C-alpha cells in the first residue's frame, strides 16, 4: 500500500532523471534496509572485468559494492553463500509481449493514443516465467500489425500484480514510462480497410501523421502560456509530440533491408529517437545502421524463414552489428521465443561470431541503453538498482539454470521453491494464469468469436 501511495506522488526527481519524467518510489521500506552480501560467486558486472570469488553487497534496493574476496561487508549484513554460482545483472528484454498486451484495434493503422498499460494482465503466467528466465526489466509492447500500434510500457518485474507495482515511471501527463511501437513491411499492410496496401503508402501515412504532430506542436508553442490560444487537446497528437520531443523512443519493428533504411530516413526526417527491432536483414545494411547512430534490438530464431521477411535472417546479426559499432540488445518477442531461454539468444549469437563480452552486454546494459534506463539498470555498479541473477553455471552454457532472480534487492524468483520452479521447467498448471477465471473467460471468448 505504501508503494502504491508513493507511486502516485511525484517524488523528487534525482538529477539523472529528466524533469518530464516522474520517478516512482520503488521500494517498500521494510526488510530491505538490512544489507545483503552475496559471497564467493563469479561476478560478471558487465561494466568492468569478471571477478572470480567476488562479493556483491546490496541495500535499500541499490547496489552498495561489487568487488573481490577482500571486499568488506557492512555491519549486520545478511550473508548469502554464492560459492560456485555466477552472478550477473538482471536481464533486460527490450521487446516482449508478456502479460497479454493489446494495443490498437483494426479501426486505423496509426493509433498513438492507445496505451498498452490499459490492457495488461500482470497475473499472467508469462510474467512469472520471465522472472524465472532471469528477466528483471522488460519493454512490453503491443503487436506489429499496425504502422503505429500504441504506447509501450517499461516494467520492472518486482513482486506484485498491479501497474504501479511494476512501473518504471510515469510521464507528466500520467501515462506510464515507455516507448511507442511502430512497424513497417508486411505486418502492418492489409488488403482492406484504412490500412496501407504498399510500402510507399505505409511511409506516406506515417509522414502525414508526423507532419500533423509538428503542426500541433507548433501551435502549442505559439500559444505560449495562453490557454485560449492552444489547440483543443488531441491525445493522439500529444503522444506523437512526446515522440518528437524524445520523451518516447520509437520501438520500430522492421525486417527487410529496405524497410530498415526507410525507418532510418523517417527518423531523420522528423528527428525522433528510434530503436530498430528484429532487423532480420541487419547483416546486409550494418554500415548504414552504424552511420545513423541508431541502436538495434535483435532476436535469435532457431531457423530462418516462416515468413518472407525473415527468409534471410541470420544468427550473425549480432556479430555483424557489433563489428561496426552499433549498440545491440536482444529481445525475446515472447511468445516468439520464450522468456525462460532469453540467455540462449546471447549464447547462439556467440556461436555465430559475436564476442562473449558483447553478447552479455547486449543482454543487460545495452538493453538498458535502448530503453534510456542505463543510469538505473543494466550493470552491477554501486548506486544502480540491485537487479541481478544467480546462475548455476556460465550464462552462455546450456547447462546453466537461473537459480534466483532479484529485483531492487528483493528475491522475485527462486528455483528452490517448488511452486516457482514450476514456472521454470513447466508442468501441470505452469501456463495457467494465476487468476484461473481469466483463463476460463479467454476460453469462453474463443468459443463465442470462433
Amino acid at each position, binding site marked *: 500500500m505504501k508503494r502504491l501511495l508513493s507511486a502516485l506522488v511525484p517524488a523528487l526527481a534525482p538529477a539523472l532523471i529528466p524533469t518530464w519524467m516522474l520517478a516512482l518510489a520503488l521500494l517498500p521500506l521494510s526488510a530491505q534496509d538490512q544489507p545483503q552480501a552475496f559471497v564467493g560467486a563469479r561476478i560478471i558486472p558487465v561494466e568492468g572485468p569478471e571477478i572470480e570469488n567476488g562479493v556483491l553487497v546490496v541495500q535499500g534496493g541499490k547496489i552498495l559494492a561489487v568487488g573481490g574476496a577482500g571486499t568488506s561487508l557492512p555491519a549486520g549484513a545478511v550473508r548469502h553463500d554464492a560459492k560456485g554460482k555466477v552472478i550477473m545483472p538482471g536481464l533486460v528484454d527490450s521487446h516482449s509481449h508478456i502479460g497479454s498486451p493489446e494495443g490498437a484495434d483494426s479501426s486505423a493503422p496509426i493509433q498513438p493514443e492507445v496505451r498498452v498499460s490499459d490492457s495488461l494482465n500482470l497475473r499472467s503466467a508469462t510474467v512469472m516465467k520471465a522472472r524465472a528466465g532471469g528477466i528483471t526489466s522488460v519493454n512490453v509492447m503491443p503487436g506489429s500489425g499496425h504502422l503505429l500500434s500504441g504506447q509501450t510500457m517499461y516494467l520492472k518485474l518486482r513482486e506484485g500484480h498491479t501497474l504501479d507495482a511494476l512501473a518504471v515511471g510515469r510521464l507528466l501527463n500520467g501515462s506510464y514510462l515507455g516507448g511507442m511501437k511502430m512497424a513497417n513491411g508486411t505486418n502492418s499492410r492489409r488488403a482492406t480497410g484504412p490500412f496501407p496496401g504498399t510500402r510507399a503508402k505505409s511511409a506516406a501515412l506515417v509522414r502525414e501523421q508526423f507532419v500533423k504532430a509538428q503542426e500541433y506542436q507548433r501551435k502549442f508553442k505559439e500559444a505560449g502560456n495562453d490557454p485560449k490560444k492552444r489547440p483543443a487537446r488531441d491525445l493522439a497528437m500529444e503522444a506523437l509530440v512526446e515522440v518528437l520531443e524524445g520523451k518516447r523512443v520509437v520501438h520500430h519493428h522492421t525486417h527487410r533491408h529496405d524497410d530498415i533504411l526507410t525507418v532510418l530516413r523517417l527518423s531523420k526526417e522528423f528527428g525522433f529517437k528510434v530503436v530498430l527491432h528484429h532487423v532480420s536483414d541487419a547483416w546486409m545494411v550494418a554500415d548504414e545502421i552504424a552511420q545513423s547512430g541508431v541502436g538495434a534490438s535483435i532476436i535469435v530464431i*532457431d531457423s530462418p*524463414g*516462416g515468413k518472407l521477411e525473415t527468409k*534471410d535472417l541470420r544468427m550473425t546479426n549480432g556479430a555483424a552489428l557489433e563489428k561496426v559499432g552499433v549498440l545491440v540488445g536482444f529481445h525475446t518477442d515472447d511468445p516468439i521465443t520464450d522468456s525462460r531461454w532469453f540467455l*540462449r539468444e546471447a549464447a547462439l549469437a556467440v*556461436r*555465430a561470431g559475436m564476442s562473449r563480452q558483447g553478447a552479455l552486454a547486449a543482454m543487460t546494459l545495452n538493453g538498458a541503453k535502448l530503453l534510456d534506463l542505463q543510469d538505473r539498470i543494466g550493470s552491477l555498479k554501486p548506486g544502480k538498482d540491485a537487479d541481478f541473477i544467480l546462475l548455476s553455471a556460465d550464462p552462455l552454457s546450456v*547447462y546453466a539454470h537461473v537459480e534466483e532472480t532479484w529485483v531492487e534487492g528483493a528475491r522475485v524468483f527462486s528455483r528452490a521453491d517448488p511452486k516457482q520452479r514450476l514456472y521454470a521447467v*513447466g508442468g501441470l498448471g505452469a*501456463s495457467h494464469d494465476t487468476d484461473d477465471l481469466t483463463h476460463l473467460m479467454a476460453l469462453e471468448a474463443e468459443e463465442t468469436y470462433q
Partner: protein
Amino acid sequence: MNRLLCLLTLSTALPAQSLAVRAETLYTAAGPAITDGIVLIQDGRITAVGRAAQVKVPTGVVVKRAKVAIPGLVDGRSTVGLSGLLNQPHDQDQLESSAPIQPELRAIDAYNGRDPLVAYLRSLGVTTVHTGHGPDALISGQTFVIKTDATEVTHGVLKAQAMVAATLGDGARAKEAGKAPGTRGKQIAMLRAELVGAQEYARKLKEAEQGKEPGRDLRKETLAQVLRKELPLLATAHRAQDILSLLRLAKEFDLDLVLDGGSEAYLVLAELKAAKVWVILHPTMARSYGEQENLSLETAAKLQAAGIPFTFQSGYEGYVPKTRVVLWEGAMAAANGLGFDATLQALTLAPAQLLGIANRVGSLEKGKDGDLALFDGDPFEFTTHCVGTIINGRLVSEGEETRGSAR
C-alpha cells in the same frame, strides 16, 4: 505388398566414398565413448570403429579430424521438405485440408529435398529425417524417411512409407462450423468407422474368389496396412485424456501406435509403459499454450526414468522458427534431467530403432552407413559448432548454416 517393395527399390544411395574420421572423443551410441577414436568408412559403409591405435587406415583414405564425433542425428518427426522455408501457399504441402481423413497421401510425392531448411538441418548434424504430412487433420497422410543429402527422392530414401499421421484434439477439429469432426467424441467415432471399413475391405479382399475382389480403394489399402501393423499410426495428442483415447483405440484395433507430441505424457506414464508405446516427444522448447500449456522441460527425463522409449523431433511450426533443430531440442532436455548419454541415444539409435532403420543408421558400428556429425566441443552446448556432417562417407556440409540461409 508388391507395391511397397517397388517403392523401396526406387531409391538408390548417392555416390558413396571412403573416409576416416579421427575424433578426440568418439561417441558411437553403441558402447562407451572412445578417446582418440577412429571411424573408418569404405564405399559409404563403416568398416571399422575403435581406438586410433587399433584401426589401420588404408593408404589414400583421407582422415578428417574433429574434437567430437557422434552418429549422424536422426530427426524423429519433421515436416521439412513438405513445409518450406518461405511459408507461402506454394511451399506448404504438409497439410491437405480438403478432407479430414486422407491416409493415401504419400510423403514421397510431396518432398522437396532442395528446400533450404533441409540443408539447414543437415548443416547442424542431421543426416536422416523422418518427415511427411503434418499434424492438424484427423488423418493427414503418410510419412517417409530420407537422408538429408538427397535433393531428389530417387536417392537416399530409407523408407518410402514410414507411418500414417493422425491427430486428436483441437488440431483435428474442422475449421468450418458444421463440418466434421467438431468434437473429440466425433473424432474417435470417425477413426473407428474408418478402421472398421478398412477391416471389412481387407476381409473381403481375403475372402473373395479370384477375379471377384472388391475394387481397389487406396485409402482403405493404407489403413489395412496400419491394421496389419505394417505401418504404425503416428498420432499427435497432447492432453492426457487424448493420449488415453489413443491407447484405447490402439487396443481396440490392435494397432502399432506411436505417440507424437505428448505434452502431458508425464501424467500417464504407467499407461504408456503398459501399452509399450513409443513417444516422439514434442520439441522441448515448443510454445506452452493451448493444448500444450502443461508441457514440461523434464518430460524426456521422466520418460527415460520410466523406461518408455522415446525420441526427439523438430516437429511442425506454422510460423517462426519454420523448423526447429533436434540437436537443440535434445540439448535442452539434456540440461533438464536427461543427461548427456541418454540424450545422445534419443537423438541417434533410438529413432533409428523406432523407424526400423537401425540396421543402416543410428550408431557407429561396422556395416552401418558412414553417417556422422562432427563438433568442436560438447555437441549440446549452445556455443559449440557442428563443423562437419558426413553421409555415406561424403562430407555433405562443413560448417553450420547458422551463419546464413541455405541458398
